[in-house]
């Protein structure tokens, strides 16, 4: 029995291990080859020598560092501030703000980038045009096609991410701290500075590290706003080496990818260590409903600041995209230019219809497969059915830690050797599942850790077999985590671009790929129309998740 369980454990973990490690190994091998993927070549150290000798790389790395640092700093300040205001204070319209603060995270990077491209390009951006008209000045004060512009637009989704990640720890802060502060006569600002900030600091550090990594790995914003203007950070540098240079410089791109991947994995390891330490110090109490802190005279400035930030980070670019979707020309807004033609255009385009169908298939199939495999792997690792579970977990996590573009390159290097796989929907499914399994595995494993072994042991003592224990005890307890992860993956897969751009082919286009294609063609109004549909789909997905959780919570309470 024990041997069979061990065998079953290996059967569960080997497929995701292979899916995760083979592409990474191929990436490593490719970085020592002097030929493009699929071609015969020779072993070489030349790619690393070229990387070392590449004088431009130092500048690109430094630019990446400061862009990511700026984006992280703004994201942490904004995310922390918004989470604090909606969870701990009496800011007016708290419920509405709590819902709206999720917008920067839900809005795909490609949509925010294109929205801001319309708003603040130096030639004819709407904000610059408005400035010129109002100030009677020929100057253009805003230029989003610049390093500060890229850093700013990168900060918006990162702030939404930080906000989401901080909501839990903020809510878990015991209300007794606020009560004590109030009794001591401390105001809102002093309570924030002296109590909340120090208490939440340990939770903030690993989140900030993740936000920094996301800023380094982000693909759409640097490609949309950086590449056309020569604003180069590491990710769009790799993209340019592969997709713009003629012929593509695979060797250099692979060697650079290995370095970036190494840095990304190191950052993840650092983040994991910080998170472990954080869990030891910040569990200070369970969620308690106390009276919110009164902002008093700070209420109005806080309200203005939060609405202002949300307007800049989400409402303005989303509004611009929504308006452009109904206009004849991108960037020219008038009642006489109103049209539904853009929607007729995209729905009349066979490739777009195919892309929508493919995206739906990928979302449903890959989220479901990832959820099933990820949950099974988490269970096997948690119950130690295989030796060295920490090592297996770390190996399966590698594709998640790698930037999407680099994982896409690794997968390309692998799938090209499988006859008939290159460019197919099946290859995208395999790649998406490889990226999705680690997310579910982490989420489910964290729940299993909290459960401990006692429940299972109790079930077995009462005569339940493994399958019955899994079905009657484990599954109901981890199901919410699996469903939550399914929705998270559905959101990620419906807008995935970085890896897809390396792997798709004729017939396997996705909505994100088609957005990039329209953008390449300069078809701004079609980009807007398709973006609007994608954003609406993401909002619907999020709303469905919220409704489902509200129902399951109310059922559990009953």
């Amino acid at each position: 029995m024990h041997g069979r369980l061990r065998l079953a454990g290996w059967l569960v973990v080997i497929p995701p291990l292979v899916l995760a490690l083979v592409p990474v190994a191929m990436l490593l091998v490719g970085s020592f080859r002097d030929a493009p993927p699929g071609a015969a070549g020779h072993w070489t150290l030349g790619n690393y020598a070229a990387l070392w000798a590449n004088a431009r790389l130092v500048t690109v790395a430094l630019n990446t560092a400061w862009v990511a640092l700026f984006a992280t700093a703004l994201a942490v300040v904004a995310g922390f501030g918004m989470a604090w205001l909606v969870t701990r204070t009496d800011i007016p319209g708290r419920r509405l703000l709590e819902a709206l603060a999720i917008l920067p995270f839900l809005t795909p990077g490609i949509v925010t980038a294109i929205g801001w491209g319309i708003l603040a390009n130096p030639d004819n951006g709407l904000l610059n045009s408005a400035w010129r008209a109002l100030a009677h000045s020929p100057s253009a004060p805003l230029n989003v096609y610049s390093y500060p512009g890229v850093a700013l637009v990168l900060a918006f989704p990162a702030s939404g991410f930080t906000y989401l990640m901080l909501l839990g720890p903020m809510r878990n802060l015991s209300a007794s701290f606020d009560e004590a502060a109030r009794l001591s006569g401390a105001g809102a600002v002093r309570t924030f500075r002296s109590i909340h900030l120090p208490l939440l600091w340990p939770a903030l550090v690993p989140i900030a590290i993740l936000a920094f990594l996301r800023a380094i790995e982000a693909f759409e914003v640097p490609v949309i706003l950086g590449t056309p203007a020569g604003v180069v950070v590491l990710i769009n540098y790799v993209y340019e080496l592969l997709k713009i240079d003629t012929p593509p410089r695979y060797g250099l791109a692979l060697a650079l990818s290995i370095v970036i991947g190494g840095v990304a994995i190191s950052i993840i390891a650092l983040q994991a260590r910080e998170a472990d330490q954080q869990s030891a110090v910040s569990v200070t109490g369970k969620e308690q409903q106390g009276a919110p802190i009164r902002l008093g005279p700070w209420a109005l400035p806080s309200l203005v600041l939060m609405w202002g930030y949300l307007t800049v980070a989400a409402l303005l670019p989303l509004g611009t995209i929504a308006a452009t979707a109904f206009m004849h020309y991108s960037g020219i807004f008038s009642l006489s230019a109103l049209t539904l033609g853009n929607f007729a255009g995209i729905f009349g385009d066979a490739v777009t219809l195919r892309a929508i169908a493919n995206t739906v298939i990928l979302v449903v199939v890959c989220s479901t497969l990832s959820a099933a495999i990820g949950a099974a792997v988490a269970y096997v690792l948690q119950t130690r059915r295989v030796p060295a579970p920490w090592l297996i977990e770390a190996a399966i996590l590698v594709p998640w830690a790698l930037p999407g573009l680099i994982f896409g390159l690794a997968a390309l290097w692998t799938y090209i050797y499988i006859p008939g796989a290159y460019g197919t929907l099946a290859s995208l499914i395999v790649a998406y599942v490889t990226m999705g399994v680690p997310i579910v595995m982490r989420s489910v494993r964290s729940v299993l850790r909290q459960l401990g072994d006692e429940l299972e042991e109790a079930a077995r003592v009462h005569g339940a077999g493994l399958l019955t224990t899994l079905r009657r005890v484990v599954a109901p307890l981890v199901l919410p985590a699996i469903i939550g992860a399914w929705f998270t993956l559905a959101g990620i897969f419906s807008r995935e671009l970085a890896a897809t751009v390396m792997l798709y082919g004729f017939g396997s286009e996705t909505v994100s790929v088609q957005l990039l294609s329209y953008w390449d063609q300069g078809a701004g109004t079609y980009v807007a129309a398709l973006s609007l549909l994608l954003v609406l789909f993401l909002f619907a997905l999020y709303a469905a998740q919220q409704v489902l959780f509200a129902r399951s919570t109310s059922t559990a309470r009953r």
Partner: protein
Amino acid sequence: MIRFAAVVFLACALLTARGVRAQPAPAAALEDTVVWYGTPGTRAYVQPALDVWKQQHPNTNIEVVEGNGPDILERVNTEARAGHPVADLITLGDLGMWALAAANGLGTYAPKLEPNLRFVTPRIRGLIDERHRFVPTYLILFGITVNTDLLPPAQQPSRWTDLLDPKYSGQIGMHDIGVLGAGLSLVMIGRSTLGDTFYQTLLNKQRPRVYGRAPELDSAVLNGGRAVVLPAQFANAYRAKGAPIRWIAPKDGAFYVAVYTGVIKNAAHPRAAQAFMNFLLDRDAQSAIAAAGYVPVTSLAKSPVDLGTLTFLGKGGITEDQALHLDDWLAIGQRLKGQ
């Protein structure tokens, strides 16, 4: 007798007209699909012709895949290396097509399946590949475009070198000359006439805004963000009728990018691909191309611009020898940029 002669004459005339209008490839049954890779916008401007093709060949579907030149080129190369060619037919600008041909990525077409080649105008005949790997499909004409709201006629440039006048400083938009694209083409074709100092002065003294992508460059002059842009397609100004822009053929020479079509080596649908390549030279396709502002290569459609009235820079377009030394030209472009 006269009536009989008239009927015979009319019948002959009709038959001749039919012969000119349609030159279908004499082929066996065509396959059901042609996967056609092209640069951005391909589908939009050929759409009217695609509708005609659909009527003529209801059983052969044309699947258009669009992407920027380097991306499409590498996609074809990767498919070949994977042993899984998806594309049947490819339409690319001169640099990309020569690179693909040099990489042995193209098959050879059967001249008898391309009867419309005989309608290629004498001026363009020299662009037909003697090794039967690709055929010219249309030309993209480049010059200077100005925003007429910002530059009244008296202030508009008439030559490339006029743009070195300090009055244009800070008003110019320019395609990047260090990457594959129209900016580099201007260097390759115009360097012998304009000299290195033209590009260096333009970039260093005139403070142009440099664009990496054509859509942003076109949009900048259309919306008044830039008063003058270069090198600019005639087709964009032609299509933007009523907009405050004007395309200028420089007196010191316009230039063109030849767009070619070729059948991919080991294509899955070679007969249909060759038939469609021939169709692209037919009146319907060439007329659709002309209506989009590009220069047709055959006499079957009227060109939107009379090439005979223009002066051309250098040899007018890129030569095979230049195209095969692309790396050298990219290095020159980068050097002129000061990188």
